[in-house]
């Protein structure tokens, strides 16, 4: 124990760290003291209590800060912390997947930032180091990148950083549109309608429905507005050497890079009312993002490419992600009319279309969903048919992509067409894998067990995933 304490060298974090980390506790303590009946009657006692909590908190925070030191060793970053229970964490550079500089709300007020190191298999807080001044954090990030990925990669990142700072955003979503779009979404309209009915029913008609039912409804109105307007405030899309980069958020600024090679599929959603105005939302499936913790709550939502945008913007964004792709140029095939027995209204909107790099499917007449999947990212192709569909000679074709919002399914196609589509889609996926793999193909192993001496493509498994 003692020798460890002696040997810990290294640097301390920013002296304001305990205050930035602990402000929440102070607020809670203050609120608790103020709200306590017994204490409120005795103001001196409350004052002393609050003071004691403050002093104690600052003292504890300061101790923790004093005993937390970080240093860079030959192949790892080492963090020593704790004053009663000492803890040493060593993160090897080659285990660091990505390094981000994040600025939570309070830290941003003080111009401070924390360093977040993504460690494969690690939890959310495992690689956090807070707080530094913003400049310090950036500098340390660069140093770590150099150590972790070599000079070249780091330089690239550096350029990216500069480019990010300089490059004008490709597009920005105005807050007014975010607010409008949220107000016109079906959750909000539905909840608001129900809430108004509830208020009218209770006050005017003297129904005693119970105002408690209003709480979830109120939540239904407020929560989406909060999430959209605060979470997506100032949504900016910009171009960097590593791919597109999104930036959003009012309090917690979130940045996300979308490397071009890792997009698995796209989903365009157009709710009923948005469609009249010409708005839609674009989301992405990105390999590794679905399960990753970018910032807590958005875990399985993939990435947002555009929270709400006009048609021209949607087309522009799509062309950035998929060069040479234009949704309008794709010949869409509508489902056969007998599908109306299963989808009386929606069958008209069940379409699919294919070009040489993607397959597009649409469905839904209230909320239109357009899924775009890349041929060379296809995981598997499935054809399904239920008893009713068999009567009508219809079948569904699913094109599966990894976890994410995209859900490409050509519903209720003619079964002969569906069977042909499955074969064609498997063929296209195979061809796309070959052509895309051609320049980087690595012969890993002869394909010995193939029955007919196949010439199947061999590609490095780390092909796309290596560039992170």
């Amino acid at each position: 124990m003692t020798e460890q304490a002696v040997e810990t060298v290294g640097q301390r974090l920013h002296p304001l760290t305990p205050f930035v980390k602990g402000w929440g506790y102070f607020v809670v303590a203050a609120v608790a003291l103020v709200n306590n009946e017994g204490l409120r009657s005795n103001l001196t006692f409350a004052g002393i209590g609050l003071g004691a909590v403050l002093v104690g908190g600052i003292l504890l925070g300061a101790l923790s800060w004093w005993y937390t030191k970080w240093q860079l060793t030959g192949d790892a970053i080492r963090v020593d912390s704790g004053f009663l229970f000492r803890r040493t964490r060593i993160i090897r550079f080659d285990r660091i997947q990505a390094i981000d500089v994040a600025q939570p709300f309070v830290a941003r007020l003080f111009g401070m930032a924390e360093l977040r190191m993504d460690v494969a298999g690690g939890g959310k807080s495992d690689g956090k180091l807070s707080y530094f001044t913003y400049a310090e954090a950036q500098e340390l990030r660069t140093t770590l990148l150099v150590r972790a990925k070599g000079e070249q990669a780091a330089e690239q990142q550096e350029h990216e950083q500069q480019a990010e700072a300089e490059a004008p955003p490709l597009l920005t979503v105005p807050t007014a549109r975010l607010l409008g779009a949220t107000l016109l979404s079906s959750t909000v309209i539905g909840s608001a309608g129900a809430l108004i009915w509830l208020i009218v029913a209770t006050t005017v008609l003297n129904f005693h429905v119970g105002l408690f039912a209003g709480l979830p409804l109120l939540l239904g109105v407020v929560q989406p507005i909060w999430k959209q307007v605060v979470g997506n405030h100032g949504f900016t899309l910009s171009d960097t050497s590593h791919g597109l980069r999104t930036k959003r958020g009012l309090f917690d600024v979130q940045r996300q890079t979308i490397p071009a090679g890792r997009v698995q599929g796209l989903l365009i959603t157009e709710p009923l009312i948005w469609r009249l105005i010409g708005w839609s939302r674009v989301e992405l499936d990105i390999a590794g993002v679905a399960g990753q913790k970018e910032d807590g709550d958005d875990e399985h939502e993939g990435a947002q490419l555009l929270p709400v945008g006009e048609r021209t913007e949607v087309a522009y964004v799509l062309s950035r992600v998929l060069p040479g792709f234009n949704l309008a140029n794709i010949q869409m095939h509508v489902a056969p009319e007998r599908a109306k027995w299963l989808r009386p209204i929606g069958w008209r909107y069940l379409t699919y279309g294919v070009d040489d790099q993607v397959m597009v499917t649409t469905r839904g007449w209230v909320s239109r969903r357009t899924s775009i999947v890349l041929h060379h990212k296809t995981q598997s192709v499935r054809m399904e048919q239920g008893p009713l569909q068999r009567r009508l000679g219809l079948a569904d074709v699913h094109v599966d992509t990894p976890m994410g919002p995209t859900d490409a399914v050509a519903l209720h196609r003619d079964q002969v067409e569906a069977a042909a589509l499955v074969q064609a889609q498997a063929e296209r996926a195979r061809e796309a894998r070959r052509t895309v793999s051609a320049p980087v193909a690595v012969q890993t192993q002869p394909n010995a067990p193939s029955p007919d001496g196949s010439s199947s493509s061999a590609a490095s498994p780390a092909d796309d995933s290596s560039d992170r």
Partner: protein
Amino acid sequence: MDDLFAPSDVSWTPVSPKLATLRRLNAAIMAGLAAIVALLALGLSLGWLYGVLAVVVIALLFGWAWILIGRNQRSWRYAEREDELLVSHGIMFRELVVVPYGRMQFVDVKAGPLERAYGMATVELHTATPSTDAKIPGLHPDEAGRLRDRLSALGQAQAWGL
């Protein structure tokens, strides 16, 4: 019409007929338990006539299940194409899955106690998507082992990053 779910350009391998025997045995156990519970519950509460009626209904359902299981077993088949594994199954709800070997994340070979007693195993291919449903039940353990080795060899040779 049937070949829509089983394209004829590949040779299809059926699964073991013992799969039907196994499933029928499973169904028999379930039906037997259900029959006893129904007979006792209805017999003691409403009268033995109802209990016996319930048992007759369960027996009829079991008979139906017997036939369905047979048909379902005959519908299971798989094929190994140059680059993909194809699995086709189902009579009421038909499904054809095409999985490229290179998309494989891992292969499972499973065998429960009853399956082991009948000398059978299930091979399941997993990709990065949970919705990929490439499962082949009712394989001889040797065949399951061969398939597993072949799939993992091919999966490695053609492996593809996400």
